[in-house]
């Protein structure tokens, strides 16, 4: 089959999406970052609140600005991947 691998990857992604739908429909979840949960676990394990001894040099002022930086990160990466794959495909066409 020509697109066997593409199909397999698509199936995995769909399965993943379906699993999220199932979880969504089975009660309340916070969907918070796993990093924040680490804080709770530390408290639970050591029995005392842990005070971070230093704070981030810069914190995005809002959730929107934070997502801006995350999107920027993804955009830069996607641009590089797209550019070089295009470059490679073109090179293959002219070589052969």
């Amino acid at each position: 089959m020509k697109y066997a691998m593409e199909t397999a990857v698509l199936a995995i992604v769909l399965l993943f999406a379906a699993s999220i739908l199932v979880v969504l429909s089975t009660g309340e979840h916070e969907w918070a970052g796993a990093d924040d949960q680490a804080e709770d676990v530390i408290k639970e394990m050591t029995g005392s609140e842990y005070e971070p001894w230093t704070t981030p040099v810069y914190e995005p002022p809002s959730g929107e600005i934070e997502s801006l930086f995350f999107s920027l990160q993804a955009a830069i990466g996607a641009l590089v991947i797209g550019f070089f794959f295009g470059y490679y495909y073109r090179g293959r066409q002219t070589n052969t």
Partner: protein
Amino acid sequence: MHIMEGFLPPAWCLFWFLVSAPFIVYGMYQLRILMREKREALPLLAVAGAFVFVLSSLKLPSVSGSCSHPTGTGLGAILFGPCITSILGLIVLLYQAIFLAHGGLSTLGANVFSMGIAGPVLAWAIYKGGQKAGLNTYLTVFFAATLADLFTYVVTSVQLALAFPAEVGGIATSFAAFAAVFAVTQLPLSIIEGAVIALTFKYIIDVRAEILVKLGVLTDAAVGRLRGVGA
């Protein structure tokens, strides 16, 4: 997910910086050789770095009801080895620590170790082992990338457990608690990451297999076989 700023006691921060430093230094040395002798592989290095950029920016929901992100380091590790990949990891972690308050500068050493070194070393070992044993290349890539992602979070759990042993039960109990949070969330994400990276690997073979041969990732015979099987 990375260990947050200030969330490791200073002694542990220093410890992980010292552990990570040799890998970074050796990676820079390897990178210089690569830049001098295999310039045609540099676009591929950019793609490997870009993969870490994209995948580690995608915070995905998971079956545990919380979110986490893949690491994307498997591709770089397979193509260029774990030391060069540790530099890619360092760049991304610096970006996230400075602009996003995600991870942190004090915990940079620990995070570079889990994401940039431990995961990639495992991916690289699995890939080399799988190739030697003659296993299906794409399946090997899938497992290498998946387990690298998962292992990153196992190592993060170990790092946190070492710094925060439980009152009752010590490090082991603490590790189980951290791993329950991270590893369970990460499992589905790492499978997706493995699948995407395996597919990317196929496309790289399609367009520029000769660079993979030059990097020592595949042999000529293996390329012929993979291309013959049908793209």
